[in-house]
């Protein structure tokens, strides 16, 4: 068993990257991910790891250099947040379309304008369709564990796709929590040696990366990319099972909390799930059959599995820490996609909460549960989409 430490989410992710010792890391500072990368750079400067740092002049170049490095044939990592991810946007698609297993902690932060440095999921949700695997973490322990597992999933020879490990800006990235570290040797052994596929550095077998492919085959390439994504959940579960054997910590495609016999449930990702669980406990004590579902893997999204977990409910609230202006929240849209396959569809509501780092408070969870109790009784939804904790 590894040692137990009191660290921030950023520190935990930096430790995971240190233990994995990637060959190249290209990065650019941005709040709140800066702290993660500067800790990592410290390990490099102190000679604790072999990583070559490429300290670029923008996030666009960070992802471009990661793409070059990964195509060259080695293990590559970076980290970013918010505007940084937005500036990378073009290159995110290219990393995925080129099937390069780059790992990136994404310290979730709001997008400008107005400028805001605090946590919400707007950045990650904007990258939903880029072809990256997206794993969301509730706390520092999960961010650490997910980072380690992400390498195994992304680098799996049946997958070879980039993955971002998401953690809530400041709430997780900068809060000190109890984290159980895994021994260096165990991490190294778990992640294994990097296997290069068609590396540019194989001079005897020159490869061309990044061809032009037009109407005759592009469509097929994109379908193939989707098909690869569909293999991710299976591999992620295999990796999680192995991880559980090593650490005793269990991971799935999503987590359920007191959901099996629940009548109403909240679906929410990341740190807000922790607060919600506490309130659910209080409501359970009062005799209200409430439960929670916390998606861990947002891309690929496990529609069928989630539908199965939610099918017995009388009312569902989906809490989104991101918005789609003029539409429903992005998580809500996915859950309605899941519910579509059910014979009887439970009534659903969508709450937008915590934008730009606005605190998600226990009374907001109570408000949602109270509303769900009413909906479960009457079967009637008054307003589908509303904002929690808005100052009027």
């Amino acid at each position, binding site marked *: 068993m590894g040692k137990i430490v009191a660290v921030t989410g950023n520190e935990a992710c930096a430790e995971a990257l240190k233990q994995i010792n990637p060959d190249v890391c290209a990065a650019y500072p941005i709040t709140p991910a800066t702290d993660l990368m500067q800790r990592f750079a410290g390990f490099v400067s102190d000679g604790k790891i072999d990583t070559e740092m490429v300290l670029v002049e923008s996030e*666009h*170049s960070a992802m471009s250099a990661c793409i070059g490095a990964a195509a*060259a044939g080695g293990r590559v990592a970076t980290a970013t947040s918010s505007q940084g991810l937005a500036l990378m946007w073009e290159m995110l698609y290219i990393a995925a379309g080129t099937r390069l297993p780059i790992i990136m902690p994404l310290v979730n932060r709001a997008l400008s304008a107005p400028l805001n440095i605090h946590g919400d999921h707007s950045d990650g949700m904007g990258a939903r369709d880029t072809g990256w695997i997206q794993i969301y973490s509730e706390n520092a322990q999960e961010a650490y564990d997910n980072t380690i597992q992400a390498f195994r999933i992304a680098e799996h020879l049946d997958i070879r796709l980039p993955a971002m490990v998401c953690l809530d800006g400041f709430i997780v990235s900068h809060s000190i929590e109890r984290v159980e570290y895994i021994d260096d040797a165990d991490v190294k052994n778990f992640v294994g040696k990097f296997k290069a596929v068609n590396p540019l550095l194989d001079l005897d077998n020159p490869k061309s990366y990044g061809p032009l492919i037009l109407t005759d085959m592009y469509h097929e390439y994109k379908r193939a990319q989707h098909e690869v994504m569909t293999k991710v959940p299976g591999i992620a579960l295999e990796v999680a099972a192995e991880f559980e054997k090593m650490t005793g910590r269990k991971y799935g495609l999503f987590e359920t909390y007191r959901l099996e016999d629940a009548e109403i449930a909240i679906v929410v990702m990341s740190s807000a799930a922790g607060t919600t669980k506490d309130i659910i406990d209080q409501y359970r004590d009062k005799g209200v059959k409430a439960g929670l579902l916390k998606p861990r893997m947002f891309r690929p999204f496990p529609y069928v599995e989630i539908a199965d977990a939610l099918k017995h409910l009388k009312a569902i609230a989906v809490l989104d820490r991101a918005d789609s202006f003029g539409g429903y929240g992005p998580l809500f849209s996915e859950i309605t996609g899941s519910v579509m396959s059910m014979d009887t569809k439970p009534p659903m509501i969508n709450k937008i909460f915590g934008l730009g780092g606005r605190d998600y408070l226990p009374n907001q969870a109570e408000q949602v549960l109270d509303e769900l109790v009413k909906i479960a009784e009457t079967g009637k939804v008054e307003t589908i989409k509303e904002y929690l904790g808005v100052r009027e």
Partner: protein
Amino acid sequence: MTTKPLKLRELAKGEDRFAYGHRMCAGCGAPIVVKQVLMATDYPIIASNATGCLEVSSCIQEYTAWKIPWIHSAFENAAATISGVEAMYRSLVKQGKIDDKQVKFIAFGGDGGTYDIGFQSLSGAMERGHDMMYICYDNGAYMNTGIQRSSATPFGANTTTCPAGDVIPGKLQQRKDLTRIMAAHDIPYVAQASPGNWMDLMKKVQKAFEIKGPKFMNIIAPCNRGWRSRTDDAITLAKLAVNTCYWPLYEIENGVTKITVKPKEKKPLTEFLKPQGRFKHMFAPKNKWMLEQAQGYVDAQWERLQKEAAAGEAEKTPEE
């Protein structure tokens, strides 16, 4: 690795590392530039390529003209992309995971991908000191998208986004002098070359590959579609660009400027402009001022370059 002799007979025997069958236009200068660069050396080379004519025409679906490892990722990032490849090479060599085979790294980009959208990525990579060479094939406009103005487009040129119209007679600004800007990065080697002077070009490539650190070469690449010139005029125009001092051949090695090929007789700029349809309107009587302004700019630039070269020469001569 020895520097190979630049004898035509020997060079002709070597294997083309940029193969025929690519789909560049007939008479295009860019593939000539690429061939000359790759032919100049026997070092193993890995190249990146900015989106553009060269890229879209050299690797289509399962076909590639590149016999060297090659990567294209996007338009504005050929320098950042190759810097990642180079960093991985250094990392793996340092860790003993691969042998050091003295691999050389090149980024190829057109003027749009270099002067404009890729400028930040280029500047960053040069500052970081990667052991790489950036080669800009400069045809003076966004030719791949249909001859739009770039910051490399020369004064007066008629392009599709600055057409020579009744009120605005083509591009009204001088071109950005990127070679000097790259020299201002204080990198060990910066040069300007022309495929019309192949020996000079190849010598520069050879010299650059013996220097560790970031290098930049700006190479003129005539484009008959955009220049509205004859398809068999690429080399003639590449030579005229040099002999009119529109495109002087020089290098700046560790801050010291040297003119590598001095025209025997500096020809009037009109000899370079006249065969190109993009400058046709400048020869109308009412636009005489344009020809004068273009010539004035070339003269001033040439004057300054000569002064800088003289200063460089003085620096080399030991004082008595």
